Structures are given as C-alpha cells and as structure tokens.
C-alpha cells in the first residue's frame, strides 16, 4: 500500500471516529427526546433526522458545500469573524458527515430508549436516583445494545461515505482524501491492483465489524423487566 493510501486510511479512521463521538454527544439527547416526548413537533424532527437516508449524498453534500463555503451562512459568518470558511477542510467534512450519519445514531438509540420504558425510570426515582443518575445508571446499561448498534453503524457508515465527501471535502491528501475517494482515484487511473487492495480490505473489515457487533448483541440477550 502506498503512503498516500495509508494517509487516506488514517484520514478515514480519524473522520469516522470524530464523527461518531460528535454524534454520540449530539444524537443521544435527540434520541432521548424523540423517545420520550409527546410533543407533535417530534414527528417533524424525526422526518428531518431520517432525511439523509433517502437523499442522494450529493444533494446533502451540495447544500453543505454552499453553507460551509465562503459565501454560505456558516462559512460566510466565519469569514466575517476573521476565520477561514470550512469548504474542503477536515472540519467541514466532520460537520457534513455528522449530518449525513445522524439517522444511524439516532434511530437505534431512540428504539432502545423507548424499549426501556417508564417503569424502570420510575423505579429508579423511587430509589432516590436523580434524573442524570437515572439516565446513566439505568437507561444507558439497559440500552447497551442500542448504543453498540448505533456506534457501529455510524462509524461504518462514515467510513463508507463517498458523495458527501467528494462534494464538501474534495480530494486533499492528508486532509480530506478518504479511502472511498482513493479507491475511486485508483479505478479512474486503471490501477485495479491498488483499488482491489483497498476495496477488498474495506469489505472484509466492514464485515468483521458488523459480525462482531451482532455477535455481541446476541450475547447481551434482551432482558425484559
């Protein structure tokens, strides 16, 4: 594997890891709210969260590019503050990936939170646990399957993204050039050997990841209260 490909691998892993962490922090409260609220607005939020599932990545990427670019609402604001806009940057890529992978974090978590139910939370309250305490000592452990699934899917989905990256990140080695782009480049250049190596590696690694998760999820048998 060439050093450029190694660099692409590292960028990919870094992007996926950062995106997953950002989404874990961002997606958990959204999923919790969606699972618990009786507010009708939640349906709108749910639909918005699910949008990346059906939109072509290029559509999302295009809007992100416009928003993050020097004349967009986000990029423009940054420029006016004397900072740099975010098009074709790693940060821009993280923002776009976060949006793109949002449903993969939120939906499994929402289902898991909903399955915990009110009763366990009420029991914890009668046993003197404060709200945060109830969440971390009861809801999180009872939702571990959901967390495992959400984290894996988000990570794997970010590893596999192409369209959004191409639109927002471009192809800057060491900054925004990820594996999927590198494979595309190799295929374009008729370097099938390198393309095979990366594509095959990604295939095997993705399978192993998912296999492990499903194996673990089976071991954590569902326990109903």
């Amino acid at each position, binding site marked *: 594997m060439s050093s450029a490909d190694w660099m692409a691998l590292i960028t990919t892993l870094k992007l996926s890891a950062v995106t997953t962490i950002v989404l874990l922090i961002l997606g958990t409260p959204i999923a919790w709210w969606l699972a618990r609220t009786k507010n009708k607005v939640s349906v709108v939020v749910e639909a918005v969260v699910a949008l990346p599932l059906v939109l072509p990545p290029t559509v999302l990427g295009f809007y992100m590019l416009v928003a993050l670019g020097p004349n967009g609402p986000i990029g423009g604001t940054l420029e006016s503050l004397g900072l740099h806009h975010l098009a074709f940057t790693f940060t821009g890529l993280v923002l776009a990936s976060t949006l793109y992978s949002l449903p993969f974090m939120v939906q499994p978590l929402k289902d898991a939170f909903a399955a915990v139910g009110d*009763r*366990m939370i*009420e*029991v*914890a*309250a*009668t*046993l*003197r*646990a*404060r*709200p945060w*305490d109830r969440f971390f*000592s*009861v809801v999180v*452990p*009872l939702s571990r399957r959901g967390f495992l699934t959400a984290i894996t899917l988000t990570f794997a989905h970010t590893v596999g993204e192409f369209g959004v990256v191409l639109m927002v990140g471009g192809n800057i080695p060491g900054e925004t050039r990820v594996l999927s782009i590198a494979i595309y480049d190799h295929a374009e250049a008729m370097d099938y050997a390198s393309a095979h190596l990366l594509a095959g590696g990604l295939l095997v690694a993705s399978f192993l990841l998912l296999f492990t998760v499903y194996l673990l999820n089976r071991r954590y048998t569902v*326990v*109903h*209260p």
Partner: protein
Amino acid sequence: MSIRARFKLDYANFSLDVDLDLPGRGVTALFGPSGSGKTTLLRAVAGLEHAPGGTLSVNGDVWQDAATFRPTHQRPLGYVFQEASLFPHLDVRANLEFGQKRVPQAQRRVSLDQAVAMLDIGHLLGRKPARLSGGERQRVSIARALATSPRLLLMDEPLAALDFALKQEILPYLERLHDELDIPVLYVSHAPDEVARLADHIVVMEGGRAVAAGPLTDTLARLDLPIRLGEDAGVVLDAVVAARDKEWHLAHMEFAGGRLWVRDHGLPVGHRARVRILARDVSLARAPTTGTSILNTLPAVVVNSVDDAHPALTLVKLRVGESPLLARLTRRSAHALELAPGRMVYVQIKAVALIG
C-alpha cells in the same frame, strides 16, 4: 403522627378528589375496584403523578404544598410496584444496594442485612432477576424498598400478579414487616383477603373519591355504607390464640369482647391472628340456647339496624364487649325479637374464618 393528603387531579375520563388524614403508623389499605383511583392516589403520594395544588405531609414533613413539590427522588419513600420491576442488568445484591447507597449514611435505619433477613433472600444475592421465581422477585423488590429506610412504604397491589400459592408465600413476610418495622404502609389492593389480613386502617375508594375511611374493624361494621370485603358484609377482629383443644382440634381465640372457637390451624398459644365473621353467619336469640350445634354464642347489645338490599332482610349492628359485629336477619325475625337499640341479645355465630 399522621399523613395528610389532599389531591385533586383531572384527566379526560377520570378525576381524583381526595382529602385524607391517615394514621402515621400501621398498614392503611386503599381498597376499591379497579379504576377507582387507588393507584393514582398512590402515585400522587410518590410524586410520580404530578398533582399541582395538592398537599401532602408525612408525619410532619411537608412533601408537597402550594410552595413545595419534592420530586420523587427527594421523598423518603419506598415503592413496591405490582410487577417486581427489578433492574434486569443488576444482580439481586446490586438491586438492593441501588437505593441504599443513594441514601445518606445518617438516614439509614434499616441495614441491608436486616432487609435481606426479613425477606429471607440471603441465598439469592448473587442471582440475576431473570433467574428468580415470581415470588422471589417480589420479595427482593420489597427488600430493595426497605433498604432505603423509607419513612413511608407504598405498595401497589404487590401480590396481584402472583398466583394463590405465591401469595401465601409472601403474605407472612408482609405480616412480619407490619409487626417488626415501624414504617407506615399505604397498601393498594382490591383483594379482600389481603386487606382483611394486613390492614389496620382502610380507605374505601370509588370513582376517584374516598367514600369511607377509618380503622378497619369499625369501618367494616358501618351500617350506613356496608363495605363488602368479598362476598358479604362482615367484620374482621383482632384476636389472640388463648388456648388449644387438642381433642377436638379447636383453638380458642380471644378478642376484645370474648372468646371464639375456631378450627385449630396449628397456631401456637399467644399468636396474634384475625378472624372474620360474615353478617350472614350470625343469628340472634333472646336467651342463650342449648341443644344447638353452634359452638360460639356470646352476649351482645344491639346498636342499630338498617334495611338490607332485599326488603325481607335487615342488617343489624351489635356490640360484643368492645367489638362490633354485623348480623343479617329477616325483618320478621327482628320484629319477633323486638330488636331495638340497647337490647341485650345472644349472638350465635355459625362460622368464623381465621385469617393469617
């Protein structure tokens, strides 16, 4: 020592409106059919149901009033749900410790060992809830609530999800709590046998309102509002095994008013138990009768009487010593006996049920 509770809650098709002054000790049963608001009341006491405008104080400690609403986790209570609701990801010991370790050291009055011993669950500590039987689970959940040293124990039909045999397994533990711990209990139930066995006080709920409240014996003997604990109106009396007749397999139960022969169930002399006497099993006579198969005949005074459901019948309240008794007879018999308040009669009791 009392629990003052005033709640008004309006839902789409149900409203709760109660103003209660309950004793701050002993077991108070919230009794009534399903949908009568018992559980809603209990949840409001726990703060699980937000009842704005309600007031609640427990033995002088204000949990809720116009200015205060202590959330559930700040109310020193224990709550036992109908389903044991143990945390499935924790073993029995961790379930027990969950509540206890969140209670400040200075407020702990019931030790974990005490709670474990009282419910007899020492051999289960290492097990996960999924490996427990239904009865064991409920015992653990009761112990878990006790381990928080609650100032008020709330029990929401803790036996309703269990079959008859498991109920019989758990009832003695509940009686033990009653006898050994000085924690007031609000006990929601629609099961007459549980109420007859465990309650000292009763609040009868109907349609979101408390239609009667008071000491169990007196409340059950009310004529203005005959409360059926099960099939018929009747009284429940506290009694003690005074003697046992080995030859005839009978036990002599002493209550505030006299002694009654009941079938010997093996309870030792000195053991406290309750007896239930239904109105239909009591008949009256002007003089002590001889040559009868009835074992229990006691002198009594007529208090008053009311018409019963059928025009042929009347329900008579009597006093045997300090204990009330109900008798159902035909109006014709009542007339023949010239029953009137204050009249001395003899009650003949055909059947006495020993409970607990």
